[in-house]
């Protein structure tokens, strides 16, 4: 994620900042079953890595950063998210 802060910051060049691709840590990946998703945003609220993205009609995980913790699958009131073993695909 890239930033340009409108306020004073410690960095002169915030656009060039690096981030860790924490998706590499993942053992399981969250798979959203779109048909069951009620677009409530609860998974978005609690994902510790903010990898849940709003796709208009449903939500989906940004696998660049998703660490596969399973919090989203546990909190989803519609049980729309299943955790699948990560096969690297």
């Amino acid at each position, binding site marked *: 994620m890239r*930033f340009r*802060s409108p306020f004073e910051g410690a960095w002169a060049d915030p656009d060039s900042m690096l981030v860790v691709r924490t998706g590499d840590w993942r053992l399981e990946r969250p798979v959203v079953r779109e048909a069951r998703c009620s677009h409530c945003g609860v998974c978005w609220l609690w994902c510790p890595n*903010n990898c849940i993205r709003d796709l208009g009609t449903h939500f989906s995980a940004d696998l660049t*950063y998703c660490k596969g*913790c*399973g919090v989203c699958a*546990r*909190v989803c009131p519609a049980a729309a998210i299943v955790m699948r073993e990560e096969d690297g695909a």
Partner: protein
Amino acid sequence: MRLTASELGIRPFSNDRYFGGHGACPGCGAVSMLRQVMQTVGPKAYYFILASCAGSYFPGEFTVCDSSIIFTVYAAGFAEAEGMSQALELRGRTDETVVAYSGDGGAFDIGLGGLSGIAERNANVLVIVNDNQGYQNTGGQQSGGTPRGIITKSTQPFHQVPAAARNRKDLLELLAAHRVPYLATASAAFPRDLDAKLRKALTYKGFKLVHVVTACLNWGFESRLAIRVARLAVETGVHPLYEIEGGRRYRLSYEPTFAPLEDFTRLQRRFQGVDLALLKQDIAERWEDLRYKAARAWPASARQSA
């Protein structure tokens, strides 16, 4: 958990303050909390982060949020935040918030002197205490916030410790004695309550502190249960949600269902083989105290000034 997005008041979903790419454990309950805090406080904020796991939430060479982050040491962190708030005041920049973020090790033990100092001077700082009930960044040692008798990297099994050896410090009581404007406890699993308390805290000019118990993987639960564990901490009465205004006026903000303590403890390895009797007694006493204080009648004059 049947909450709709509008109930939570979290739209639009794109309005984010804090992003992925940081080094916290998968499923860290503290990051869930911190995201919500940043969402409420907004971008015009300076975060003074005392040494803790939060070092990995904003790793050295980069940041994953749109506010200014200042890493600092235990002994100086709170005073630095106070200095910043005074500098902003002198420049007339009153729309910016100064936040001091500390672990329980920082707030209950190592930085307690500094915290007491800025409370005494009523510094215009919002303090967030991320209480994961131990020194978790260094591997899970016992802190002043660790509940009685549980297993940490630096405690003996429960049966080897004298029963009355120690109790958890009550941070809010310590600070209430400083007669500060606003103190509250909150939980990441109760987002509306957390949001409301932060908003209320920010209406006060002066010292305000929100104490949040967050679930940490060092407690020994499966990562997917982080929010469930945080919720059970409240529902079993382990972590009462309340606020104290003016150091004297108590208000309970949530009446838990008082689920059996075992629901909470059996999910976590740190309670394995621990006799829960003392812990249950501590919880019962704390609630008795709180109810007594919350029920106190206030003369009209006190009600106006608080």
